[in-house]
């Protein structure tokens, strides 16, 4: 793995001690996961009751069950606690029976998470891959800075949805608040309901699709034309999560960056190295 990354000139530096880095492997035999990912069996399941326990204890319990090989974990009575289900860098089916508070499921890379209730602010912040599906509503800064994966809320979400998102897909079954897609850099956002003021304000790249009314576009956010290819992709995505565009996918309004504020290219630093 180290050889692969160095030969592609991505990581030429030799780092030691605390600065030592271990890189993600793109080779299928390495399980497309972080080097410390645990082999889990999806048929092996466990239940965790969060009642009366701190978020830290619950998260440690999830990690312990994964180390035992459990691939399907259900958390009962999450009670809107903050920071549950965070930092999971593993394949895992994780179900929350209830609602989460702030910062739920952040920094995740790989798990498929289902939440039967609602989530508070900053759900799935910095998600790298996997899926997070919420059956009810979500708070503000939903999917802030996500880089990959699918983040789905079947209800309404607050303001600044997908702020600074750098990849992945955010799907909202209902309405989203003001400044959604603010400083968005990549990825796609599908909003089946209405969108608040300043949609896509200062977005550098990425695309936002809106099924309902848009209260107002932000600075440098402009209308664009839908293609058949995009329509097919959106239909497939919505079907995956049991959602439908009320007025048909072909009638979604497509918003992208006017690129008048665009003052840097859209490549990640590592990709820049490859190009250079």
């Amino acid at each position: 793995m180290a050889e692969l990354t160095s030969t592609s000139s991505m990581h030429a530096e030799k780092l030691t001690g605390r600065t030592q880095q271990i890189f993600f492997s793109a080779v299928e035999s390495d399980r497309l996961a972080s080097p410390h990912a645990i082999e889990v069996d999806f048929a092996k399941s466990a239940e965790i009751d969060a009642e009366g326990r701190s978020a830290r204890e619950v998260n440690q319990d999830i990690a312990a069950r994964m180390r035992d090989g459990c691939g399907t974990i259900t958390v009962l009575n999450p009670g809107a606690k903050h920071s549950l289900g965070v930092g999971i860098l593993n394949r895992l089916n994780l179900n929350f029976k209830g609602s989460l508070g702030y910062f739920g499921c952040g920094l995740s890379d790989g798990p498929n998470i289902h939440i039967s209730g609602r989530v508070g602010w900053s759900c799935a912040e910095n998600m790298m891959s996997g899926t997070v599906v919420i059956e009810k509503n979500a708070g503000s800064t939903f999917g802030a800075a996500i880089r990959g994966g699918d983040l789905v809320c079947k209800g309404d979400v607050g303001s600044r949805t997908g702020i600074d998102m750098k990849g992945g897909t955010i799907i909202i079954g209902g309405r989203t608040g003001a400044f959604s897609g603010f400083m968005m850099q990549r990825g796609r956002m599908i909003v089946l309901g209405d969108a608040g003021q300043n949609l896509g304000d200062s977005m550098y790249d990425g695309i936002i699709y809106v099924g309902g009314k848009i209260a107002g576009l932000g600075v440098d956010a402009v209308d664009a034309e839908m293609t058949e290819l995009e329509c097919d992709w959106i239909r497939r995505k919505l079907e995956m999560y049991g959602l439908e565009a009320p007025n048909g996918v072909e009638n979604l309004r497509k918003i992208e960056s006017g690129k008048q504020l665009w003052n840097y290219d859209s490549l990640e630093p590592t990709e820049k190295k490859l190009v250079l």
Partner: protein
Amino acid sequence: MCGIAGLIHRGKTANIGGELLSMLQSLKHRGPDSTGLAMYGSADSGRADEYVMRYKVAEGADLATGFKIHDEIADRFNLVRNRLAEYNAVVVSVEDSTPYARRCRFRYDGDLRRLADYLEDIEGVEILSIGKALELIKDLGDADTVGDQYQLRNFEGTHAIGHTRMATESDVDIRSAHPYWAYPFLDVSVVHNGQLTNYWNSRRALERKGHRFMSNCDSELIAVYLADSIDRGDDLEESMHRSLRAFDGVFTYVVASDNKLGMAKDYMAAKPMVLYESDEFVALASEEVAIRSVFPHEIETIDPYEGEVRVWQS
């Protein structure tokens, strides 16, 4: 950061003291400096001239400044009693809340603002609230500390608002703690989470109209602004809509009057608010954990949107 909360029972009274303290204790991590509650009880005697007043004559920290302060506090309490008598206000009852704060019920049919100004002219005296139903209590420490100190755990009433404060731009003292009473209007109080960036300009404009400010806390501006707007004939909801256009900054605030509870969120929607509403009960707070401290089971909650104003009646 600060945490704010409010609740209202529709058509009945309940133990709002216990409920609100529980909500505020859940929000302790948002602000441990001070805790305040504005509760609307069943204290109204039905007499048009009878009021309940909560006031303080010193800060808790003053007690550590020497022996002399205890005499000064006693003198200030005496001065308040004398000035009430001087204005022909009849004291019905007086209860000590703390060594430096009291609850006083009195009858008075004169100009309430003149009386309030006369009392606050005494050094160290601040009227926290005067109302028919409103009782406003605030002090340093978390909700459990303040609740025990002022014996609020079994306070019966219809609705209440509360605040846990993380001091940012003004001092850690009772004067800068929330809620704020909308002086001199009976039974109007406000709690706020956020920053008002046009505070000084707006404050100067209101001071020119004759309103007084007791602190340098921007949250007090909301209370005084609403009081001024109500004074000019707007109802509570209109005043709240007007405030969203008048204030710059990021803020969410909760306001209560004798029979109403309201919330307003600025156009940037940068400060949180979670809302639960049923036919019998409405609860709102900065975080859902606060509401879940009253309703441990799964509930349907929403986040109000930018520029949204909502008002409920008890």
